[in-house]
C-alpha cells in the first residue's frame, strides 16, 4: 500500500511527569511506497474535487424532476409548500429539494454499505488479525481493489489497510450528509454532483466489504466455476431442524456453519437464507441454501418451516418478530443496528439463552457476538424443532379455511388501493370464493409480499396468506440451482474481452442488480437476462436480482446458471455475489481501462471515468430497485458514466437523468487525435431512466450500450440488436437510427435497404469516428 498509519501502544512508562499506563497513540501516516504507478491528480478526493467531471455529465444529462411530495418537512420552519416556483422558508426550490432528497437517500445507502463494511472489517481483524493478506483472486488477480486504487490512490494489501479506506468513506459521508442540512447546499446541480460523490464512496465501501470477506472466509476467488447451490423453498428438507438467516452481514451465519462443522452436524440441520446473507452463506458453504429474495420473507416465515430466525442487518422486515411470534419461532438479532427491542444477552451463558428460547420464556434475544450466535442458533434449532413439528407443516391455510376467509370479503377494494402493483385482489377473491382459484393463483407470481393489503383490509383477511395458499404448488416446486457468487473478475478475463468491448464487438455488458420490487414478477428479469446472454452480451448479476434469475426454469427444467457460462465473456451469466459484490462490476469496467488500455488508475478518477463512459458499453438494470442502497449503487455507476435503467417504480426516485437526443449541440466530444469537436450522436442517450415494461427495457438496454468509440463493425452489431429488438418488441423500426449511424460502414448489412431509406429521409450526413473524450486535454492527461 502507499501509506501507513503507525499505532503505538505502551502498557506502562516511567516519565518525568510520572507513571503513565495504557498509552496509545498514532504517529500519523507515513509514506511507504511499494507501488511504482505514479500517483494521479485526485487521490482521496473531497466532495468538490471531481465536481467538473460531474458537471460535464450533468450538462448532458439534466435532471427531470418528478416530485414525490410537494412539501418539505425537514425542519420546524416547515411544512413548506414548494409547488412550482414557490420556495421554502430557507429559500430552497423544488429542484433543490428533490436533489437534496436524492442525496439524503444516497447517503443512507452509502452509510449502510460503509457501516456494514466497517462491522465486517473490524470483526475480521479481531478474528484473523490486521495483517491478513488481501487475496480476492489468487494468481489471477493483480489489481486486487480497482476502485480503491482509483479513488484513494492506494494499494491495500492487508485487512488493516482497509481501515484507512473506511476512515475516508466515513468522513466523506458525514460531510455529504451535512450538505442536506437546512441552509446548506441548495443548488440542484451541486447537490447532484454530491450525489455522484456519494455513489463513488458507496462503491469504494462495497469493494472493501467484499474483498475483506472473500480474503478472510475464503469465498470463491474470482472463480467462474463457483459451485452450483440450491435455491428455493422446495429445496429445503423440512424434516430437519431449519435455521433461517435474513440480511446482509455474513459473520453470524459463518459461525453457525462453523459450529455445525465442528460438531459434525452438517447434514442434520438445514441452514437457509433470504436476501444477501443467503447469497454470502452459499459462497462460504455450498451446503447452505437460499430461499429467495427479500419478498420471500413473509411467505417463508408463515410456512412455519424455520425453527429459528437469525437477523443481521439491512432489508429485514421490521415486523419479523411479530410474524415469528405467531408461529413460536424464536428470533436472534445480531446487530446493534437492528436490535428489534430485544434484551441484550451478549455474553450470557449459551445454555441459559437456549433454555429461555426453547421454553418460550423469551421471543428472542439480542446477541452481538457472532460466535455466540453460532452456538445458540444451532442448539436452539435442534432442541425446538421436535416441539414445533405441527407448526412446520408448511401449510398456510387449509382449503376450507381459505374459502371461509375469502367469503368474508366485502369487495371494498381497500386492499387493491394499498397494493403497490395495483393487483386485482378483490376480483381474485370473489372468483376464489366461487370455487375458481386460477386468478388468485396467478397473483402469486406478481405479489412482492409487502402485506400492505392485509394492513388495509377492514375485514382483517390475511390476504397474502390466501395468495400463497393459492400458489402453494408453485411455492413447493421452487427448487433451482444458482451459481454461487464468484466475486471479482480475473485480470486475464479482462484482457480477453477488453478489446472486443471497447471496439464494440461484444455488444455490451449488462448488469441486472438490485432489489425485488418487480412490477410483474421475477420471471421478466430472468427472461431479460437470457435474451441478452443469447445476444452475446456479457450479463452480470448480483444480490436479489441474481437469485431471481436463478429461480427460473427452461423447457429442460434447467436454471439459467446451469445453461450459461459463469466466465466473464460474451454470452455468459455471471453472478458476482451479494449487494456489496456490485463493486466488482464497476471494478471490471475500471479494470478494462487499466489492464486492457493501460491507463493509469491510481488516483485518476476523471480520466478513467471518461474512458469508461466513452468506450465501455456497460448498462445497469435495477428492475426491482427499492432501497436507498439502490440509489447509491446507481450513483456510483453514473459517476463512471455507466447508465442505469430502473423499472416503473423507479420514477419514485424523484428524478431521472435524461439526455436530449434532439439537442445536437449536446453530443459533441473532443477528438484527441485532431483536437476537433466531433458530433457522436446521443450515446449513451440517458444516464438514469425508468421504463414501463420489460419490452421497453430490452430495447433501452440495447440502445444504451452504444458508445462513441465503437468501431463500425461494433456499431453495426449494436445497431442490429437495437433495431431487431425495437422491431420485435415495439412493432416498428426505430425513428432515431440516423443519430447512431456515423458512416455507411456502421449500417448492418442485413438491414441496409431500410436504413438507407431512413437516412435519406432524415437528411443524414456522414461524420467520423473520433478518439473520444469529454475532458479538455490538460485535465485528461495531467
Amino acid at each position, binding site marked *: 500500500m502507499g501509506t501507513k498509519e503507525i499505532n503505538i501502544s505502551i502498557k506502562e512508562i516511567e516519565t518525568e511527569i510520572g507513571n503513565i499506563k495504557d498509552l496509545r497513540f498514532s504517529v500519523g501516516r507515513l509514506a511507504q511506497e511499494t507501488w511504482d504507478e505514479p500517483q494521479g491528480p485526485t487521490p482521496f478526493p473531497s466532495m468538490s474535487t471531481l465536481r467538473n467531471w460531474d458537471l460535464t455529465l450533468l450538462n448532458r444529462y439534466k435532471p427531470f424532476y*418528478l416530485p414525490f*411530495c410537494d*412539501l418539505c418537512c425537514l425542519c420546524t420552519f416547515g411544512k413548506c409548500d414548494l*409547488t412550482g*416556483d414557490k420556495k421554502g422558508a430557507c429559500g430552497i426550490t423544488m429542484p433543490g429539494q428533490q436533489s437534496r432528497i436524492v442525496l439524503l437517500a444516497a447517503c443512507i445507502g452509502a452509510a449502510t454499505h460503509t457501516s456494514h463494511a466497517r462491522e465486517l472489517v473490524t470483526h475480521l481483524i479481531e478474528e484473523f488479525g490486521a495483517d491478513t493478506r488481501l487475496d480476492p483472486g489468487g494468481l489471477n488477480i493483480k489489481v486486487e481493489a480497482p476502485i480503491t486504487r482509483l479513488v484513494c490512490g492506494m494499494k491495500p494489501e492487508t485487512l488493516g489497510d482497509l481501515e484507512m479506506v473506511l476512515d475516508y468513506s466515513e468522513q466523506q459521508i458525514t460531510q455529504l450528509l451535512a450538505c442536506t442540512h437546512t441552509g446548506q447546499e441548495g443548488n440542484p446541480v451541486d447537490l447532484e454532483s454530491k450525489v455522484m460523490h456519494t455513489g463513488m464512496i458507496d462503491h469504494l465501501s462495497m469493494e472493501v466489504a467484499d474483498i475483506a470477506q472473500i480474503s478472510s472466509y475464503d469465498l470463491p476467488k474470482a472463480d467462474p466455476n463457483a459451485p452450483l447451490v440450491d435455491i428455493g423453498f422446495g429445496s429445503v428438507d423440512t424434516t430437519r431442524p431449519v435455521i433461517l438467516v435474513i440480511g446482509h452481514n455474513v459473520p453470524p451465519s459463518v459461525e453457525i456453519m462453523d459450529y455445525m462443522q465442528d460438531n459434525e452436524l452438517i447434514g442434520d440441520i438445514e441452514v437457509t437464507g433470504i436476501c444477501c446473507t443467503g447469497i454470502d452463506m452459499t459462497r462460504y458453504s455450498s451446503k447452505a441454501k437460499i430461499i429467495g429474495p427479500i419478498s420471500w420473507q413473509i411467505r417463508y416465515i408463515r410456512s412455519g418451516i424455520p425453527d429459528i430466525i437469525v437477523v443481521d442487518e439491512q432489508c429485514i422486515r421490521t415486523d419479523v418478530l411479530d410474524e415469528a411470534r405467531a408461529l413460536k419461532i424464536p428470533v436472534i438479532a445480531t446487530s446493534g443496528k437492528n436490535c428489534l427491542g430485544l434484551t441484550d444477552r451478549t455474553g450470557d451463558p449459551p445454555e441459559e439463552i437456549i433454555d429461555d428460547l426453547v421454553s418460550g420464556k423469551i421471543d428472542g434475544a439480542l446477541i452481538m457476538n457472532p460466535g455466540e450466535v453460532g452456538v445458540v442458533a444451532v442448539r436452539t434449532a435442534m432442541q425446538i424443532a421436535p416441539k414445533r413439528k405441527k407448526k412446520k407443516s408448511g401449510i398456510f391455510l387449509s382449503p376450507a379455511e381459505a374459502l371461509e376467509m375469502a367469503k368474508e370479503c366485502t369487495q371494498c377494494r381497500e386492499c387493491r388501493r394499498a397494493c403497490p402493483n395495483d393487483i386485482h385482489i378483490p376480483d381474485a377473491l370473489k372468483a376464489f370464493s366461487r370455487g375458481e382459484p386460477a386468478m388468485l393463483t396467478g397473483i402469486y407470481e406478481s405479489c412482492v409480499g409487502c402485506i400492505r393489503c392485509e394492513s388495509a383490509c377492514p375485514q382483517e383477511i390475511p390476504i397474502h396468506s390466501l395468495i400463497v395458499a393459492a400458489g402453494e404448488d408453485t411455492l413447493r416446486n421452487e427448487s433451482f440451482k444458482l451459481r454461487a457468487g464468484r466475486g471479482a473478475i480475473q485480470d486475464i478475463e479482462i484482457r480477453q474481452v477488453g478489446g472486443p468491448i471497447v471496439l464494440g464487438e461484444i455488444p455490451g455488458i449488462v448488469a441486472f442488480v438490485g432489489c425485488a420490487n418487480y412490477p410483474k414478477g421475477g420471471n421478466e428479469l430472468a427472461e431479460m437476462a437470457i435474451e441478452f446472454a443469447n445476444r452475446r452480451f456479457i450479463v452480470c448479476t448480483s444480490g436479489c436480482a441474481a437469485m431471481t434469475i436463478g429461480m427460473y426454469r427452461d423447457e429442460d427444467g434447467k436454471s439459467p446458471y446451469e445453461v450459461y457460462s459463469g466466465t466473464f465473456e460474451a454470452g455468459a451469466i455471471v453472478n458476482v455475489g451479494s449487494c456489496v459484490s456490485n463493486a466488482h462490476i464497476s471494478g471490471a469496467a475500471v479494470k478494462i481501462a487499466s489492464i486492457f488500455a493501460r491507463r493509469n488508475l491510481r488516483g485518476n478518477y476523471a480520466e478513467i471515468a471518461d474512458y469508461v463512459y466513452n468506450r465501455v458499453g456497460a448498462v445497469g438494470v435495477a428492475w426491482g430497485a427499492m432501497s436507498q442502497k439502490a440509489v447509491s449503487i446507481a450513483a456510483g455507476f453514473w459517476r463512471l458514466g455507466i447508465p442505469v435503467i430502473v423499472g*416503473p417504480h423507479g420514477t419514485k426516485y424523484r428524478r431521472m437523468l*435524461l439526455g436530449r437526443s434532439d439537442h445536437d449541440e449536446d453530443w459533441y466530444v473532443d477528438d484527441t487525435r485532431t483536437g476537433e469537436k466531433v458530433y457522436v450522436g446521443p450515446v449513451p442517450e440517458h444516464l438514469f431512466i425508468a421504463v414501463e415494461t420489460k419490452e*421497453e427495457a430490452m430495447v433501452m438496454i440495447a440502445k444504451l450500450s452504444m458508445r462513441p468509440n465503437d468501431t463500425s463493425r461494433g456499431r453495426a452489431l449494436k445497431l442490429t440488436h437495437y433495431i431487431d429488438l425495437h422491431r420485435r418488441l415495439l412493432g416498428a423500426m426505430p425513428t432515431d437510427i440516423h443519430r447512431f449511424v456515423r458512416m455507411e460502414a456502421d449500417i448492418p448489412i442485413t438491414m441496409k435497404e431500410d436504413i438507407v431509406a431512413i437516412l435519406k429521409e432524415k437528411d443524414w450526413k456522414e461524420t467520423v469516428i473520433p478518439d473520444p473524450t469529454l475532458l479538455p486535454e490538460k485535465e485528461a492527461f495531467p
Partner: protein
Amino acid sequence: MSQEAWLTAEVAGPKKASLITKPEIADAMIRRAKRPIFVVGSIAAEIDLEEKKLIDYVIAMAKRYNIQVVATGNTNNEFLKRGFTPDAVMPAVDIGNRLTDPRWQGVDGKGPHDLAIFVGLPYQMGWTILSGLKNFAPNLKTISLDNVYQPNARWSFSNISIKNWIMNLEAILVNRED
C-alpha cells in the same frame, strides 16, 4: 366524487387536480387546445371496457379530435395491430421531460403542445410524471382520462367505475360529433 388518490398513500400536495365531473369538461378542454397530445401507456391495451379496450377509445378520440399520439412502453405494438400509427414512440419520462421544455417544438416540430392527455400508464408512474409537469410545465394543461384520480393532473376523473368511465368516454366522443 372525491379528490382521493387511487392508491391510498399517494396523497398529493396542496395543488390537486380538479374533478372532471361531467364529460363536457374534458371535451371543452380538448376543444380549446391548439396543440393537444395524447400520452398512452401500456395498460391502455390491457383494460377491458366491455367489448372494447381502452386503447380503442384512445384511437377513436385521437382521430376525431386530431390529437397527436405518443406511445410509451410497448404500446406502439398494440396501436399498430389496430391499424393506427402513433406520431411518436418514446419512454414516458422522455416525453414528460420534453413537455417541461417550453422551447420544444412538439412531436411534429410545429410548436409546443398546450395540452397533454395521459392515459394507461402504471398509476404511480403517471402520478410522478404528472407531478413533474405540474411543477415544471406551468404553461401546459394536463388531463388524466384514467378512471382513477390522478391528483397531479390539472383535471382528472375521480375513482369511478368502469361503467361510469365508459359513459364518460362515449360522451366525449359524441360531443365532438356535434
